[in-house]
């Protein structure tokens, strides 16, 4: 099958049930997408498939055949996507492990809904766990990326 990852086309001939998470990490060496739970419960593996945020750990290769997958490495060319910038300005991360998933989730939300309400932000980010507890800054950063303030 063919799959496009960060605008590069790849051919995959392995186990079709392999989650996209392990494909991008083990086969493509894209390490920004993280394993946290393997069951779609924590969001550390969030990637975009045709622009939509999905859990890389529960999305099989079969499900993305012919589609466009974007990982954190492909979110922006220079690492300066407005969400990434807001994340830095708010000094969001502690350990940082979950943050790429958080950023991918936030970027998909804002692409679809550029001006979410506070409640929409909270609801949309609730699938992404941060054990360090950076939520207050995560919410501020999403808001900043949305409104510029």
């Amino acid at each position, binding site marked *: 099958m063919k799959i496009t990852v960060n605008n590069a086309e790849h051919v995959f001939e*392995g*186990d079709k049930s*392999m*989650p996209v998470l*392990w494909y991008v*990490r*083990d*086969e493509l*060496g*894209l*390490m*920004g*997408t*993280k*394993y*946290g*739970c*393997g*069951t779609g*419960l*924590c969001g*550390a593996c969030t990637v975009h498939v045709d622009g939509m945020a999905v859990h890389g750990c529960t999305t099989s290769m079969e499900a993305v055949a012919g589609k466009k997958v974007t*990982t*954190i*490495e492909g979110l922006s060319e220079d*690492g300066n996507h407005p969400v*990434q910038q807001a*994340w*830095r300005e708010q*000094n969001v*991360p*502690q*350990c*940082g*492990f*979950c*943050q*790429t998933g958080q*950023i991918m989730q936030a970027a998909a939300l804002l692409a679809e809904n550029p001006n979410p309400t506070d409640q929409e*932000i*909270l*609801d949309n*980010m*609730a*699938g*992404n*766990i*941060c*054990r*360090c*507890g*950076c*939520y*207050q*800054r*995560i*919410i501020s950063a999403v808001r900043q990326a949305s409104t510029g303030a």
Partner: protein
Amino acid sequence: MLHQIEKFAEQSKTVPAAAIDSVISNASRRGVLKGLGGFVLALHLLPAGRAGAFPAYETFGPGMPNGVVNDPHIFVAIAPDGEVTIIAHRSEMGTGSRTTLPMVIADEMEADWDRVTVKQAEGDEPKYGNQDTDGSRSLRHHIQPAREIGAAMRHMLKQAAAKQWGVKIDEVEAVGHQVIHKSLGSRVGYGDLAEAAMALKTPPRDVLQFKDEKEFRYIGKGTVPIVDLHDITTGKAVYGSDVRLPGTRVAVIARPPVVGATIKSIDDSAAKAIAGVETIMHLPITPLGSKFKPLGGVAVIAENTWAAIQGRDALKIEWDRGEHGTFETRAYEAELRASTAEPGTSVRNQGNADAALKDAAKVLTYEYYQPHMAHAPMEPPTALANYADGKCEIWAPVQSPYVARTDTAEYLGMDAKDVTVNVTLLGGAFGRKSKADFATEAAFLAKQVGGPVRVQWTREDDIRHSYYHTSSVERIDIGLDSDKRVTAWRHRSAAPSFLSTFTEDKGVQHEIEIGMGLENLPYEISNVSAEQCPAFAHTRVGWFRSVSNIPRAFAVQSATAELAHELGRDQKEFLLEIIGPPRILDAKTAGLPGKFWNQYEPEKEFPFETGRLSGVVRLVAQKAGWGKSLPKGEALGIAAHRSFVSYIAMVVHAKVEKGIVRVPEVHVAVDCGFAANPERVRSQMQGACVFGMTAALYSGISFDNGEVQESNFHDYEMVRADNFPELVHTYIVPHSFEVHATGVGEPGVPPFAPALANAIFNATGRRIRNLPIGDQLKA
């Protein structure tokens, strides 16, 4: 923490005081620096009267294994182009020490932070000094050596410039990455001085000139972002699971469901049939008390992670559960309660609490319970190891890389010099990654395979094979006289000790656990007793962020509020009254057989000052608007606790609706001495509130037939963005450098649960004594 427990396990009952014998001792005399060529300043206590802008003070740092190293030759390198490299020898798990300590060095050496690169040290304590990143000690033990490294480096750069210009050193100044001579109008950059400066001997501390606090560029400002910020936000940051070598194989392991369980039968045919699975290997089973040795089990080794996970899940293993195979949480809770019903072993005996309770007009008895908890860092345990030519190299997210190295060497029957441990970023740790069983697993398998093996724990593995936070019953009996004055406070604790992970379980707690809020009640009461009651472990028990302070603060601060209610008093006013007037807690007056444990810190430098505890209570109450009226179902609750020699008070605003607890706001007052990086103090407090709320609302590991029942985030839940402490306000008590910096990684957690429980009581009249809260308020 780790090393002290090891010492205890080796039957050395007391930790010797730090050997403070000179201004600078050349560690090479101790023979630990062979071949390194550095001149190591192992310790730095100045004789009285020779102190400069920053008088030396004693900490337990030098008492830690391999002590403290403060030589710029070890920690600083300057390239000819002026680029400065500073070594971070502590592990970064989210607290910010990898940024803050190098930042302190850079500031004191007048380096431009934009021209500094931070490099992570490998596990090598003889070279870098102690690297055990736990106990909230990175700042407490290392801010002083960091300033010394920076000041020594600045001195050497000035010396080199003065020599070049043929002038005296006191004619030159080091400012902003260069040395200048004002009257000559000469200036030379650090890069041009590097070679000459580094060839100089490290100056003794008494010639060092430290910056005045108002000269700090970065220290105390909170303006320096963490060094990994850009990499984290672009996915380039390297964690334990992100390192690959050519030909790396992945191992996922089936571990015994009960510690020490052995294999009765195994059918691995289905596992072998999975495409990509290459080998099945057995690891020897270890019983409880095997320290950080792998649990053992069956490893499925595959060409990729997915195949290894599927292979492991396809193993059919019948286990012989062994001696802990009947462990059951409800029965164990009853056992702990029964244990505290009887007198235990006294750890503090001030006055005569038993007699005062007998004579009391009224006795109030409160019992608080907490089950085992798992750390659940976002990055499950993982490590990569390679084995070639008799040498083993590991890349792992470990809190104590040197212990990982020596433990692994011992497990493999190798010399520690043939094992290297490279420290990656830690995707959370919370104490779990002090125990490097996962790194040893990878090394063992790499040696068997003869090539690189990456061990990946699944989330289920992490939840089911942790080193769990202790489970405890804390029982408090309070005596009142006929005038409703408090005459006695007796605290009994039954909790399995982490000693059981290191040595034969005698059912007793270690001095560290006793020292965390059992022996050091800071209340002004005439008769105080503290006892530890027997409790035996049936699973691996280990430290977890804030350790025994969590159940102790929950019990003591809940009981204080319960008592205030009983007496018809305001919780905050009563808390201040029972703490009493400002004083230094004195072990003898408190009825201790010896000293307070006090994180092993010298009491002269880090005394328990009750005035600082009252201070944070007053500050937080004032900031929170304590006493303000709130809508029905909402209320404030307060709690205060000193842990890791930092003082924290919290006011939690709780809102309870249909049994669901929400926390719109938390106010936190922090007295951590001099705050080197206020921005990270704030982030740690925000994190502590989330971590504390998860523990209070959800965290409980339950056992049935010896097996952990929870497995992933659906049944071991975490606080999420749809219900978290929404606004955390942190107030840092301002101090000059003279009030010693103490850590903040852990102390924010303990006051959260009691402040929340007290707020819930004030909002609903329902008293929470058993954690987690779970569905209790829905009934």
